[in-house]
């Protein structure tokens, strides 16, 4: 009896040990076919960076992003072991920047996002896109574009400022029912109401423009408020500003250029809890101080500018002799308003002469610091404050549940505001934003998401619907390895053809390699945005060697490739390599995918088919 129990006990122990190893071995996923590897943990974490949450400095903290939203912020947040981690040491993480005054058309949204501006307020434009903008800003999909809130048509007089841009603008005439007019704007989808009070009298020229009367301004503001919309007003003189605020305007979207704010104006702003977007960038352009050109020359910003942005920054608003007084008065007004506790929001008025989308907001923050804001206050003016004042509840801060619009910069903008320009990565909706000025404009970047197959090898030549295939060996790095390739019959799953890749790995280079490379761009190693793709999937068979799939990506061609391995056995096998499992790779800037043999030295042969980026 006792012997029988001993045998059962010993058997149970052995069975448990064997089952444990078979069922629970942590190395199972690592070394077996990658197709069966553990699915990647969704999301990523940024660790070791100083975090400015939009309002205050949280010190060094970890931020976890999942499903496009910020999942957690904390000094020592646990990060799941398999989650990708972005090293933030020596860097500062900011909320995605918000430009509170732009005019967006063309590539504006892409230009803005490239420089970390993930949200902007459009102050005058056609309303037809209102629904599309709304859909876009509610989506958490990967995008390289800033979200927009828009006024639609600004409210102006016949022939007044805002009517000169080549698109028909409905205007307020002497007998217009202002209330109904504002209602029509809101019905068109206006997120807020923008009024233009501008007769050009502030600029010392004889030319005058027709503009809204004081009564119309008052009526329009009241109509906006009756429909629970903010009323923001373009003014260029202190008197117009005074009247707008007295009429209940929520915000002035420029500071006046003709005078410094006086005590009465400051008191009125404070008393009505109004806020101001001074647009110092465009006032600097009016003043001719060369701030725009300085942005173009900035080492960090200059390289990311398109030719159009460059020429816009070099230009000047209004022309004439430089009048530094315009900027000096505005700086002094900001100083007084800020000291009195009036909320100051960062806005650039891009793409007016002297400004450029995205880039100029970094200059605007520096100008705000010049006007007496602390660095943290200037950062808040471009993040948490505009979100709060315009009622955007899902962004502007780094806090759990908010949209993962984030900017990681080198250095510490709380110590030096120009550090915001040294951008390392911009995330929009939790996805990295391609930051090359050309990305998004090249043909390859417009690859439809449905086009996943990049190599079926069924024709007479090696073609791909986009990009190209090239042999690649270590000879380009001074090695001696060789590779040859040809199309052969009988592909995987009964397809017509496959790609045979064979050659020899020879010593002579530290990391010898030879194989075939797929480059998705129209030019060799040109980056293409593949951030929407999840995995590299292909069929392979071969001599049983272990091969590497190498991803070349990132802002420069010199970056180290990120590698995963697979085995090419005698039978066709599907290999699925999640892009997220390529450590450090940036699919938003994908330059090449290489299938290569490496160590040990010797001959190799493998066959590829049905290569997909899906």
């Amino acid at each position, binding site marked *: 009896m006792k012997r029988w129990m001993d045998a059962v006990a010993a058997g*149970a122990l052995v069975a448990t040990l064997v089952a444990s190893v078979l069922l629970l*071995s942590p*190395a199972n996923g*690592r*070394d077996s076919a990658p197709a069966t590897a553990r699915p990647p943990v969704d999301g990523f974490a940024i660790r070791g960076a100083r975090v400015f949450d939009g309002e205050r400095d949280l010190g060094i903290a970890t931020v976890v992003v999942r499903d496009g939203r910020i999942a957690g912020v904390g000094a020592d947040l*646990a*990060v799941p072991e398999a989650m990708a981690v972005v090293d933030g040491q020596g860097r500062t993480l900011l909320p995605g920047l918000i430009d509170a005054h732009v005019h967006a058309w063309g590539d504006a949204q892409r230009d803005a996002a490239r420089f970390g501006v993930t949200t902007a307020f459009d102050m005058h434009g056609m309303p037809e896109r209102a629904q599309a903008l709304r859909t876009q800003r509610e989506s958490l999909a990967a995008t390289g574009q800033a979200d927009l809130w828009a006024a639609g048509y600004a409210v102006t007089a016949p022939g007044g400022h805002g009517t000169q841009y080549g698109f028909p603008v409905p205007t307020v005439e002497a007998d217009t029912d202002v209330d109904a007019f504002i209602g029509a704007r809101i019905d068109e989808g206006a997120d807020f109401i923008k009024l233009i009070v501008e007769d050009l009298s502030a600029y010392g020229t004889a030319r005058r423009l027709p503009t809204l009367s004081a009564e119309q301004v008052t009526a329009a503001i009241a109509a906006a408020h009756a429909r629970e919309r903010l009323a923001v007003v373009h003014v260029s003189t202190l008197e117009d500003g005074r009247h707008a605020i007295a009429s209940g305007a929520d915000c002035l979207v420029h500071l006046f250029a003709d005078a410094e704010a006086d005590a009465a104006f400051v008191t009125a702003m404070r008393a009505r809890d109004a806020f101001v977007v001074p647009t110092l960038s465009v006032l600097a352009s009016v003043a001719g101080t060369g701030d725009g050109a300085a942005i173009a020359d900035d080492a960090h910003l200059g390289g990311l500018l398109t030719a159009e942005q460059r020429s816009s920054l070099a230009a000047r608003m209004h022309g004439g002799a430089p009048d530094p007084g315009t900027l000096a008065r505005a700086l002094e007004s900001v100083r007084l308003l800020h000291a009195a506790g009036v909320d100051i929001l960062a806005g650039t008025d891009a793409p007016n002469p002297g400004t450029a989308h995205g880039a100029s907001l970094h200059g605007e923050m520096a100008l705000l610091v010049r006007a007496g804001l602390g660095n943290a206050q200037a950062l808040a003016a471009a993040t948490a404050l505009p979100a709060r004042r315009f009622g955007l509840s899902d962004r502007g801060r780094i806090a759990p549940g908010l949209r993962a619009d984030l900017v990681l910069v080198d250095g510490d903008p709380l110590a030096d505001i120009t550090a915001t320009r040294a951008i390392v990565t911009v995330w929009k909706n939790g996805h990295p934003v391609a930051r090359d000025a050309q990305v998004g404009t090249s043909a390859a970047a417009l690859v439809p998401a449905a086009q996943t197959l990049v190599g079926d090898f069924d024709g007479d030549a090696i073609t791909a619907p986009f990009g190209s295939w090239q042999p690649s060996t270590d000879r380009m790095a001074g090695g001696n390895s060789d590779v040859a390739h040809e199309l052969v019959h009988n592909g995987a799953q009964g397809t017509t053809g496959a790609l045979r890749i064979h050659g020899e790995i020879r010593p002579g280079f530290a990391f010898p390699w030879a194989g075939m490379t797929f480059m998705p761009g129209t030019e060799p190693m040109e980056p293409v945005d593949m951030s929407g793709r999840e995995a590299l999937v292909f069929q392979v068979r071969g001599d049983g060697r272990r091969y590497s799939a190498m991803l070349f990506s990132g802002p420069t061609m010199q970056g180290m490739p990120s590698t995963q391995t697979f085995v090419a056995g005698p039978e066709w096998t599907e290999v699925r390599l999640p892009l997220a499992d390529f450590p450090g790779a940036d699919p938003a800037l994908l330059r090449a995918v290489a299938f290569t043999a490496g160590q040990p030295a010797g001959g190799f042969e493998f066959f590829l088919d049905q290569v997909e980026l899906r």
Partner: protein
Amino acid sequence: MNTIATSTPTPVVARAPAVRACLVELRCELLKLLREPAYVLPAVLFPVLFYLLFGVMLSGMGAPPAFLLAGYGVFGTIGATLFGVGVGVANEREQGLLRLRRALPAHPLGWLLARTLAAMGFSLAITALLAIVGSTLGGVSLPMSGWALLFVVNLSGVLPFAALGFLIGSLVGGNAAIAVVNMLFLPMVFLSGLWLPLTMLPDFFARLAPVWPAYHLGQIAFKVVGHDAGGALWLHLLALLVPALVFAHFAWRRLSSR
């Protein structure tokens, strides 16, 4: 002819109340251990010192602080249990105390229970010290439920290793037990990924890690801090329970057969 014994009443074996006996045993066991600072101090302080070295001072090595905190808690628990129970039982058996105990009216389980509870006391002290160091110097922040779960995992983790300790103590003498426990304990905790993540070890060792009970207790603790390798909890519990029962079975057989 011998008639003397026939009239004597059969002696009744009277046992002391079980709970009280256990408490007395526990008090004696703790007193005995506390009088051996050469045992107490290393058992309690080593895990904390190791954690300070690898988890705090060399924290740049890549292992997350919470991972190391959980790992060293399990490491300390297993060490205190194997040395306390294994070496203790072996010594007492060698000194003939076991035979004496059999003659005593105390319930035999009381003696085992007291040793197990003493090991839990050590585990409690180690886990508490690690929690203090981890939350202050190590910068580990867990929700209250996380800290509580770590205590629960370590305290219940004493049970399977107490069973292993009894088995060792039942098999070898006092001096040999020290050697056997050392030979088993150090490689086991290392190869179970309690000091360093298994990803830093060669694949072969990582693959074999689940044969060690320490691996399963470690994985349960790592689950608490979100750094486990992804196996199901019930599988780890089963992989601890079965060996514990088997070790206890054989230990009981050995101890009760002499």
